[in-house]
């Protein structure tokens, strides 16, 4: 055990490098994500935010380094961690209902070759109620709006009931009401002591939603409590010369009153 990555840390990343076809996407990452926090990961397009989540989950091969979930490799800690992929990662034209998708969250617990029982279906229905679309349970998923689809994904994560939630752009292209409902649920998870990590692209809401922030651009530019990290200096380092973005940042900073 490395002293800089103690086992009580939910996600400890050591010396992580990921490269696609010799082009590094993440370079020598060193990061501890604290327990029981709402954590935002922000950075420009192509900064490796999604790649970071996938590397934590062994969905893509690591070029070097390791990721420890509460001190152990991911494949020993699967039950502790839930992944919510980007909404576009699946085919929403697939012939299944919202309830079917949420029920998939229970498959691991059901196990090989066994049928889905009443208990799993009730759990799934409850989760759909909790995200506010219980009345759409039997709707085919292509007939849901983008926000409703994202709620289905959140419900699927809820039935998996873990300690750590990794979410890839959960607020991308959803309506304001869904964003509001979802952040409420994430905050609820947070008060239960769970660790929630979201890749987030909207700098205007970063400081409102997250109490811990990681700024990423191929490497970790800054990581820590949002209050300390969300500064013009750090953002400039992260987003570099993307000036139009910097205007947004200036606006966001102004709203913070600093």
């Amino acid at each position, binding site marked *: 055990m490395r002293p800089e990555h103690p086992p009580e840390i939910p996600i400890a990343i050591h010396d992580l490098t990921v490269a696609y076809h010799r082009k590094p996407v993440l370079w020598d990452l060193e990061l501890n994500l604290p327990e029981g926090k709402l954590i935002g990961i922000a950075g420009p397009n192509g900064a490796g935010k999604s790649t970071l989540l996938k590397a934590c989950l062994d969905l893509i091969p690591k070029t070097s380094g390791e990721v420890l979930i509460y001190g152990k490799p991911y494949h020993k800690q*699967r039950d502790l961690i839930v992944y919510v*992929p980007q909404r576009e990662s699946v085919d929403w034209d697939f*012939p299944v209902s919202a309830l079917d998708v949420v029920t998939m969250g229970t498959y691991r617990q059901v196990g090989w070759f066994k049928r889905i029982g009443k208990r799993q279906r009730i759990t799934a229905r409850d989760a759909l109620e909790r995200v506010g679309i219980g*009345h759409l349970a039997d709707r085919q998923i292509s007939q849901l709006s983008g926000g409703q689809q994202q709620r289905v994904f959140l419900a*699927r994560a809820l039935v998996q009931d873990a300690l750590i939630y990794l979410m890839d752009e959960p607020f991308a292209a959803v309506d304001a009401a869904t964003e509001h409902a979802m952040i409420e649920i994430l905050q609820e998870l947070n008060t239960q002591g769970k660790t929630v990590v979201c890749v987030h692209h909207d700098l205007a809401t970063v400081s409102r939603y997250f109490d811990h922030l990681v700024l990423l651009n191929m490497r970790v530019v800054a990581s820590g409590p949002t209050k300390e990290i969300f500064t013009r200096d750090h953002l400039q380092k992260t987003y570099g010369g993307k000036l139009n973005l910097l205007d947004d940042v200036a606006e966001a900073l102004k709203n913070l009153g600093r």
Partner: protein
Amino acid sequence: MIDGLIDTLLLKPYNTRIVVLGVMMLGAASGLIGSFLLLRKQSLLGDALSHATLPGLGLAFAAMSSLGIDGQYLPGLLLGAATTGVLGILFVLAIGRTTKLKDDAAMGIVLSVFFGIGIVILRLIQNIPGQTSAGLESFIYGKTASMITSDFVLIAITLSFCLFVTFLARKELVLLCFDPSLAATQGWPVLFLDLLLMALVATVTVVGLQAVGLILIIAFLIIPATAARFWTNNLRHLLWLATFIGAVSGWLGASLSAVFANFPAGAVIVIAAASFFLISMLFGKARGVIPRFLRQRDLRRKVGRQHLLRSTYEILEKSQKERPLKNLSISLHLLQQHRFWGKGELAKLIRQARIEDHLERQPSGELRLSESGFGEASRITRNHRLWEMYLIKHADIAPSHVDRDADLVEHLLGAEIVHQLEAELALTQATIESPHDIQAETTPS
């Protein structure tokens, strides 16, 4: 000829019975497995696989001939076919993983190269002394009539195997097809499941080589599944329906080709399947072209009717001070000004409304709502205003509670929400004033 066809369809002649039944079961198996292939979006991988079986057939023939066995020994040939077929798939995967080539390019390369090599091998083995390779070409286009009892048994076993595996591992295969990343994070062996699916595809393909031929077996895998998709959005129904369509296509196709013996069997079978596809594409309940067109037309009509009745009602409201509203005649001119209507649209809507007995033309040429039309107009206007108030008051919860089914446009809010809203807004009276001023529209809305 017709009598012969009917007898064959009814499985009366003994010699065609096993052929027809065999192709039917093959169709069922390919329909079932093809559905998963379709859902995994890898239909063309099946095509690469089937073309890659040709060199295996030739090589197996050569190997068996040189060992002194009959070069046409079927299990040996099929084993060879399966070997190079799977090899082809592995090449596709390897090309995809090691280069930046897209899957379709990789499949195109493997498909054509393996097929080309196969043709060359077939030519070479013609010269092996003491053996005839004459029958091997029939694997390309299929030769259904050559099916014998042992082939029939092989197909029956294949179908049972496919049914068994999909019954057992449906949940796992569906998860693989819908969201492989979830499957991976839950610890399911994604690669193994993919290989299992490919093994099922390879089994069906190799067993079907003789009946349908390696060029057209892909049609048998894809067409029943895609045809079934037009009828249903339910996965379980999709699987059963694809199995059924595959079976019926096989039954019809094999019977036809048995009677009209000079047509290549594979082609006849595929045409039979394609006719199902065509029918499904046109009439399929869930996504067929014609039902969709009809739904859209109905919706257009419904919306148009609502606009017309509501406009009439709003004009009446504007022209009268006292309530309850009296049902008076209004001029066409007023209607035309009240809202932007497309060219000829208003005339068409009025004609429709007169047919439905919602609107009457007075002798003076003015229009007047009928008794039922007046009731309908006030109901529609009321609903519309409830909807507007709902949006104003509850815009924050609206997106999750509003029905996106355009067909239900009249019932945007469920009965329960309407009651809630009425209670909350203390609006139980029959008419509601518009929450905003109604002005004549002069621009397109």
